[in-house]
């Protein structure tokens, strides 16, 4: 049910069993899953049902590291959160992403892919992605197309599914939340502080503010931060009344390990379509649900090379763009060379290679608090996104390995943007609005903020949901995984909390 401002007057104290901070993909999933349970749930959201400038401005902050999006626009602060403008790309993390990897520092999660598998399937339904199927062989058979026959020691084909149109949690699950007897929703209320007991072992209450300067509090048996990869650490760091370094921050880890997916223009891939059809790698439909294959480094390659995960999507070029690119990069002479040397007999097709590369967990890449304050008096975010040499070199390594496979199999040739022109020395890397790792999961409190149940180390009743708990980022868009983790957390809360 929805609590109106009149239901929550200034100075009031609301009580629940579970208080969830943030009504985005993770928060709505949690609240929805706890419907019908014996637990009283309070879901508190900074914005309303519609976006508004004033609330959105609370997300503002300063980026001092690698060039990044304006923080104000990198998240949406209203019911449904950033699902209100996500693109629907979905894929589970690979099993290898959860493993400790030789040559990759701080790799490995305290849970395995099989721990998440049942929740992935459930998350698939929530994201309205259609049948839970990611096998390129089986999907290929369904559309009479084949994956490229890569050497499994080097490369593989993966599948990306699309929520289409992208499921906006705020619209899709609003009625579920409002109709739930045991779920209360409070809008236009921003949590500004977690008030812990003297030993900083338990959160006693949270403090929420509204733009009319009124405040109220919520007491609960358990609190879940589900406010996103920037706001979760912000809240923990800002809650420094008992401990100056903030909550859950005994080892100075909160806010560190900020990870993004490295989005890079990988270059141009030429394909001789008669020999190896790229059909699977273009947009296809399974029972009206879109999907496409993409090219990845194989798990064997990642393990043997200590490489970071990597996927490349073949992006169709329209005729004009194709013509411009072909002229610009000298693709016609290449086609001529391949034809005259008898390697092709047909016209080549050209695809841009959209690369998404994993970023290694890096403590220097971090979220801290600036001295500037927002309209509610809360210190703003200072984001210092940093990439390492390994992050850059991995992109080259991956593109080199794929170029070798394309040539070996006679698929085509790769023009790597990173080996040409100005990109050669400094590839232009963008993020994807994927905020991960800032409250990372680890079995050891010295290397992570939350444990395998997403509970903050050293605290009895504080949990974190969302991609901030990712130990590593893999090369899959994070939404499906964060929803799966929220489903898993909801089960944990149901099992451990006794009203």
């Amino acid at each position: 049910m929805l609590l109106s401002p009149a239901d929550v007057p200034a100075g009031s104290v609301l009580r629940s069993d579970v208080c969830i901070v943030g009504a985005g993909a993770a928060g709505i999933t949690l609240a929805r899953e706890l419907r019908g349970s014996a637990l009283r749930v309070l879901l508190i959201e900074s914005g309303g049902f519609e976006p508004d400038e004033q609330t959105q401005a609370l997300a503002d902050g300063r980026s001092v590291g690698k060039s990044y999006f304006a923080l104000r626009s990198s998240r949406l602060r209203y019911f449904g959160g950033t699902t209100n403008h996500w693109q629907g790309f979905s894929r589970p993390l690979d099993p290898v992403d959860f493993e400790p990897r030789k040559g990759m520092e701080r790799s490995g999660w305290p849970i395995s892919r099989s721990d998440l598998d049942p929740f992935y399937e459930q998350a698939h339904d929530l994201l309205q992605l259609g049948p839970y199927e990611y096998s390129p062989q089986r999907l290929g058979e369904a559309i009479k197309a084949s994956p490229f026959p890569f050497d499994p020691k080097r490369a593989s084909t993966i599948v990306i599914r699309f929520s289409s149109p992208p499921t906006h949690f705020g619209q899709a699950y609003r009625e579920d939340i409002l109709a739930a007897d045991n779920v209360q929703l409070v809008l236009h209320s921003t949590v500004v502080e977690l008030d812990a007991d003297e030993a900083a072992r338990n959160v006693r209450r949270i403090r929420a503010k509204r733009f009319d300067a009124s405040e109220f509090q919520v007491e609960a048996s358990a609190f879940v931060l589900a406010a996103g990869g920037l706001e979760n650490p912000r809240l923990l760091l800002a809650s420094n009344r008992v401990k100056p370094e903030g909550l859950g921050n005994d080892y100075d880890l909160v806010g560190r390990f900020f990870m993004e997916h490295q989005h890079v223009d990988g270059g141009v891939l030429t394909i001789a379509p008669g020999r190896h059809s790229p059909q699977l790698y273009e947009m296809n439909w399974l029972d009206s649900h879109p999907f496409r294959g993409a090219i990845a480094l194989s798990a064997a390659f990642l393990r043997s090379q200590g490489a970071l995960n990597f996927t490349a999507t073949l992006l169709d070029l329209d005729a004009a763009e194709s013509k411009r690119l072909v002229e610009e990069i000298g693709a016609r002479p290449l086609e001529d060379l391949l034809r005259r040397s008898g390697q092709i007999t047909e016209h080549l097709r050209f695809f841009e290679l959209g690369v998404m590369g994993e970023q290694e967990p890096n403590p220097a890449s971090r979220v801290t608090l600036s001295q500037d304050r927002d309209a509610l008096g809360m210190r703003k975010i200072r984001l210092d996104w940093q990439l390492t040499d390994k992050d850059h070199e991995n992109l080259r390594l991956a593109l080199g390995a794929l170029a070798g496979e394309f040539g070996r199999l006679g698929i085509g040739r790769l023009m790597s943007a990173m080996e040409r022109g100005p990109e050669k020395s400094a590839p232009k890397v963008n993020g994807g609005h994927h905020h991960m790792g800032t409250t990372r999961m680890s079995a050891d409190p010295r290397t992570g903020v939350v444990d395998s149940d997403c509970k903050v180390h050293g605290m009895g009743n504080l949990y974190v949901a969302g991609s901030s708990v990712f130990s590593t980022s893999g090369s899959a868009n994070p939404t499906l995984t964060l929803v799966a983790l929220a489903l898993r957390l909801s089960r944990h809360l149901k099992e451990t909390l006794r009203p």
Partner: protein
Amino acid sequence: MNEEPGLNRRRFMAAVSGGGLTLTGGLIAWRLWQPQLAARIRRVRLEKRLLHVLRERLVGSPGAERFGPMYLKLRPQDSSQRALLAPILESVITTDHEALSRSDEALAALVRNLIQQDFDAGRTVSLDGWRLSETEGRICALVTL
């Protein structure tokens, strides 16, 4: 001159047998050398055939004209016809002992096979961003020398 006939005969025999040995040695050497010579001749002929096959296909090619000079700039130590062709020739000879008797198209196929082997073994070069096989770079350079 008064020489003993026996001595003369011995000398004569020694001379004859020595000459025979020399002749035999020469024959043996000839026998041993002849296949090497034949192999060398075949190699030279194959080299010419390969050059002909590659040139016939690639002379005037915009691809060769674009990538050939780039390859030579990248690998100046390979800037002679012999140096460029040597690894290709070796591979063709190793792959097919009867390569010389093959058709032009069959020789071209052997080169294509080598290109795939290059990619498999990581023998690649980056020319203006394009990742090409060493052999592709070499054959472009060959026709632009």
